[in-house]
């Protein structure tokens, strides 16, 4: 009989390990097809404002440049917002690539250059002149913390209701600490960049090799956005070179590759640059304040934890940052709060232990501070309150 413990202490090879380390694994950008065309995405140079003029004449004149897609020349897409949403879209209005002249964040894709070779597409992209009208932008959570609001919908569960009277308990505590924790934006940036190779099969049929953590999500997106039948769209993702959550939603290179393949009736590959890997979802920057109180023996008697996260102006990404603080340690007087600030950035996306990484980092730091203030061993201070110590495994 195989039990979980049979694997403990025994080396186990990944199923796909050998293929990956020997280079045999084929990733989305490595699929080829006859007449494959290459796409390079141009990113916005401003963080907010609008595109006034696009002059692509010099680029399109180059022999081998096939097309330059912008908001000015694309058509035949879904009209409804809902078509651009996916199963994990937070509430709001999903981002639509190349939709209009509006710039909502720095690095927003504004044009797609398609050419016979990657090198030519990249060179042609440098010749496309884009004139912007820049508007003031807000990208600093710290600067906008005064504009924090309570989200309409808690995507991952709302903060646990207050227990006892945290303020009174804090005021009466023998030992008290208060501390602020600030975490900057974190980008997933896996080794494999986002890439899609879209093979147009004719008769409105398409096969897409996509870097994604959810082929069905990518498939649904393509069907909805481009009005294709479900049985005419096939999305394949044999290997993923790291994603950490960033592949949970379709990313904009998928839209770009399918858009071009459909319009040009030929296979198209679009790969994000390393720089463009910073231009979509991320773990949100977060500001946190904790106040902890303990009695003279170091026992936790009061806990307040307030967090402010960041979201875009078009979707409301709320995550569970603070609830862990009422779960991990026994405390009779707790109060938790979570708010959001809208910034001119792309909407955050889940990243490895979303919310918990942020909240527990702050909580654990604060517990250390409390133990230090109480003059007791930080581990010894935690143990008596650890919830779940009656679990067999921990004994």
């Amino acid at each position, binding site marked *: 009989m195989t039990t979980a413990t049979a694997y403990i202490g025994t080396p186990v090879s990944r199923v796909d390990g050998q293929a990956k380390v020997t280079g045999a694994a084929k990733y989305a950008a490595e699929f080829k097809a006859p007449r494959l065309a290459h796409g390079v995405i141009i*990113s916005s*140079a401003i963080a907010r404002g609008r595109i006034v003029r696009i002059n692509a004449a010099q680029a399109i004149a180059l022999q081998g440049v096939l097309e330059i897609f912008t908001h000015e020349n694309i058509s035949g897409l879904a009209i409804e917002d809902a078509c651009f949403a996916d199963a994990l879209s937070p509430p709001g209005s999903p981002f639509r690539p190349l939709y209009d002249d509006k710039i909502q964040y720095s690095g927003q894709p504004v044009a797609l250059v398609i050419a016979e070779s990657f*090198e030519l597409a*990249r*060179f042609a992209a*440098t010749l496309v002149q884009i004139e912007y009208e820049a508007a003031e932008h807000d990208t600093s959570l710290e600067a906008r913390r005064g504009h924090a609001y309570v989200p309409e919908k808690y995507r991952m569960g709302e903060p646990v209701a207050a227990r006892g009277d945290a303020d009174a308990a804090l005021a009466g505590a023998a030992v008290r600490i208060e501390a602020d924790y600030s975490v900057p934006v974190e980008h997933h940036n896996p080794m494999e960049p986002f890439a899609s190779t879209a093979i147009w099969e004719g008769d409105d049929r398409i096969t897409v090799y996509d870097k994604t953590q959810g082929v069905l999500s990518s498939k649904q997106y393509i069907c909805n956005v481009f009005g294709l039948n479900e049985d005419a769209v096939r999305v394949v993702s044999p290997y993923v070179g790291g994603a950490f959550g960033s592949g949970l939603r379709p990313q904009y290179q998928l839209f770009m590759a399918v858009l071009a393949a459909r319009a040009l009736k030929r296979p198209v590959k679009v790969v994000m640059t390393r*720089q463009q890997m910073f231009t979509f979802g991320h773990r949100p920057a977060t500001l946190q304040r904790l106040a902890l109180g303990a009695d003279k023996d170091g026992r936790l008697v009061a806990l307040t934890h307030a967090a402010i996260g960041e979201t875009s102006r078009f979707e409301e990404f709320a995550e569970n940052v603070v609830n862990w603080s009422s779960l991990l340690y026994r405390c009779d007087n707790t109060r938790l709060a979570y708010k959001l600030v809208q910034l001119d950035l792309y909407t955050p996306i889940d990243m490895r232990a979303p919310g918990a990484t942020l909240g527990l980092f702050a909580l654990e730091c604060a517990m250390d501070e409390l133990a230090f203030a109480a003059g007791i061993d930080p581990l010894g201070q935690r143990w008596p309150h650890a919830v779940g110590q009656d679990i067999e495994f921990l004994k």
Partner: protein
Amino acid sequence: MNNFSYTRVSDVASAVREVAADSTAKFIAGGTNLVDLMKENVARPGRLIDITQLPLNRIQGTEDGGLRLGALVRNADTAYDETVRARYPLLSKAILAGASAQLRNMATNGGNLMQRTRCYYFYDTATPCNKRKPGAGCSAIYGFNRIHAILGASDQCIATHPSDMCVALAALEASVQVQSSEGQRQIPFAKFHRLPGDTPQIDNTLQPYEIITAIDLPPRGFAENYCYLKLRDRASYAFALVSVAAALEMDGDCIGTARLALGGVAHKPWRASDAEEILNGKPATLENFKQAAAAVVRHAKSYGENDFKIELAQNVIVRALQLAVSMEQPA
């Protein structure tokens, strides 16, 4: 990337003749920086002259008892050369503090001197940059400038020189051997790189028609008391926020001769002569180290995100001097 032509040369005379004949030409050796710049459309040479076949790949003694490092010797081979390790360990340590093993295997000594700043805005062609496009403006002065200069910058450019190797070469008073069709000349290391002033597009005093053939190290190697201390945001594969090359000749408990150079703080490897003067002939005490460090940053100017560098630089100087005296290795 622009289209470009490619020529391979096999002797120095042809190399300088080819480069002088085409104002869009650039030499390429290891290519660890130039190829990146070409991919980002920052460098747009019309022609690449491959110099990897030139006979400049030896390390050998000089007549005055110093050491000549061929321009095409790879950084890794220089750092692990037995003579360099025995006589100029400061240089070896500095080289190994930079880049990654893979890059050091490719990058050449001459190329290390010629590498360009890693200022974010220099690389981002969507933003103004006086170094990339003179007169366009500097995005870093009011932008993200954590990695930028605190010494010798101008209102045109606050970029830093990124090399670790060059910081040690500045402290060791190396000289750069260059050649053109006119003949050979020697550039003292302190005069090789330059401050930005009103012409930040010019990194150094090498003329476009010249080639670096070697870097000469003088006989004094400071092998008894030295330290290369580099502070950065990641423990490896990151450029210095501040680095210090300290080289001392001790005279009992006193400092006979001090050499001090800093990286990550200026448009060029920053030789701290005023601090050296304070240290020369003085007891090796914390008080004197602090006084020397304070002298280095007396005219420092910071730009917001790099404010911390003024204090950090002083701390790194003091620590590097302490380590050079004790010869403990930095953690």
